[in-house]
């Protein structure tokens, strides 16, 4: 069979895969602290590792696949909510939460307080301060730009903010949590927090729509290519060539 047939097939599979990521970005356009995912396409060379292989052969066996997704780390828009327990991060930092599966990172600052006064994430896991979990004191809560939490002037703790180095393996785990090896974590530099606000998802609906259309149209192109191989070339090979001579 023609190698082009498989190339078109692989490309189509990768476009349907891309659609999954685009759908997830658009579905999470209202999720606070959500980081958009971008698709990475790359080519895979199917070769026998033979140096003497002709360049034509290499070009013919070069398949495009979707090889990965990267997290968009750009700042999302900060939306004012007026809730004292909503905190947005301005900068590259992450909050640290203690879950049953170890430390997780999040930029979703929609916090709540447990019955015994502990500061919790929206999912109910303790939010870490620089000296462990934070217990809120009664009274009106105020959170300063550096993350210091106080009630009526009495300091309850300071929010722990960390930077995760690029390439440290930041992984989405759902629930707006991200995990990374602790070795990739450093104290956040230049990140400020803003009380009474939440950071929106950084999904850009325009880019997502363009990506959607591109994926759809390029899948259509692959369909045309496939039907071309299917109906035209193979038909010629099996039906017409036999009549020659």
């Amino acid at each position, binding site marked *: 069979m023609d190698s082009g047939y498989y190339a078109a097939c692989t490309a189509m599979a990768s476009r*349907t895969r891309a659609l999954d990521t685009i*759908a997830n970005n658009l*579905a*999470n356009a209202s999720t606070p602290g959500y980081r958009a995912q971008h698709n990475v396409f790359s080519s895979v060379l199917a070769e026998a590792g033979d140096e003497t292989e002709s360049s034509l052969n290499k070009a013919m066996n070069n398949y495009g696949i979707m090889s990965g997704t990267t997290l968009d780390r750009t700042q999302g828009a900060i939306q004012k909510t007026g809730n004292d327990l909503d905190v947005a991060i301005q900068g590259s930092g992450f909050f640290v939460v203690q879950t049953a599966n170890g430390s997780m990172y999040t930029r979703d600052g929609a916090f709540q307080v447990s019955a*015994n006064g502990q500061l919790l994430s929206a999912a109910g896991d303790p939010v870490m301060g620089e000296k462990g979990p934070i217990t809120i004191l009664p009274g009106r809560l105020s959170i300063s730009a550096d993350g210091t939490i106080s009630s009526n002037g009495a300091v309850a703790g300071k929010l722990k903010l960390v930077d995760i180095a690029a*390439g440290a393996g930041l992984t*989405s785990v759902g629930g707006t949590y991200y995990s990374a090896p602790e070795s990739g974590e450093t104290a956040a530099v230049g990140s400020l927090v803003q009380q009474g606000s939440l950071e929106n998802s950084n999904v850009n609906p325009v880019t997502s729509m363009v990506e959607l259309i591109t994926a759809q149209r390029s899948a259509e192109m692959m*369909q045309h290519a496939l039907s071309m191989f299917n109906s035209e070339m193979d038909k010629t090979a099996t039906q017409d060539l036999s009549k020659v001579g």
Partner: protein
Amino acid sequence: MFHALYTAASGMTAQQINLDNIANNLANSSTTGFQARRVQFSDLLYQNEVMPGAAATQQTTVASGLQIGLGTMPGNTEIIQLQGDLSSTGNPLDFAIQGTGFFQVLMPNNQIGYTRAGSFQPDAQGVLVTANGNALQPAITIPPNATNVTIGSDGTVSVTLPGQTQAQQVGTIQLASFSNPGGLNAIGNNIYLQTTASGNPITGVPGGPDGLGTIQQGMLEQANVNIVDEFVNMILAQRSYESNSRVVKAADEMLQGLNQLAQ
């Protein structure tokens, strides 16, 4: 089959719930003491095809991995704790709380309910009750012939009786607050019930050091619904619903194209 179809469906469902909540906020924008809610969303699990940081070769690791997200879900509806505007009614038995506290009222099943709607009136015995007839706790009885009712900033209720110059104390209003008011259970009629998430009530007199707030007589607290914000959120919900349905259409067309290939 494509995940995209289900992922987009999760986005559409989420925006439907978002719109339901916005509709409830707007419907209650004239409800005394109503506290608006906001739906919090979070992303669903991820399908990890290649984990970031996995070994690519013996020496190198994958920098970004291949993670396919499976959509969104509404996590909770957070109660917005902002103070509502106070409007003057001139009725001496209308009380507004400026602060975080709640009035305590006795429910028919002897449970204590908590409310910020401070529109009270005396029942046949002169006991102060809410519009639904739930008595304010601790109970305060206004003598039927009282000519004047005054509430001090510390919650003491005093009345003037005909022929007397000296005001007479008939009780003290206490307020309750919670360490996590967002965890209260709303049961309608402006009433909240305590839950294990909200914690036990901290009760005290108004204006005290517990930060319960003060009581304003002759005022009512309006709903803290911000109409402009709700409309903006409604537009966002609608557009987001549309973009998710566009994904469904795209996935459908791609599948249709695939089916045509086989013909």
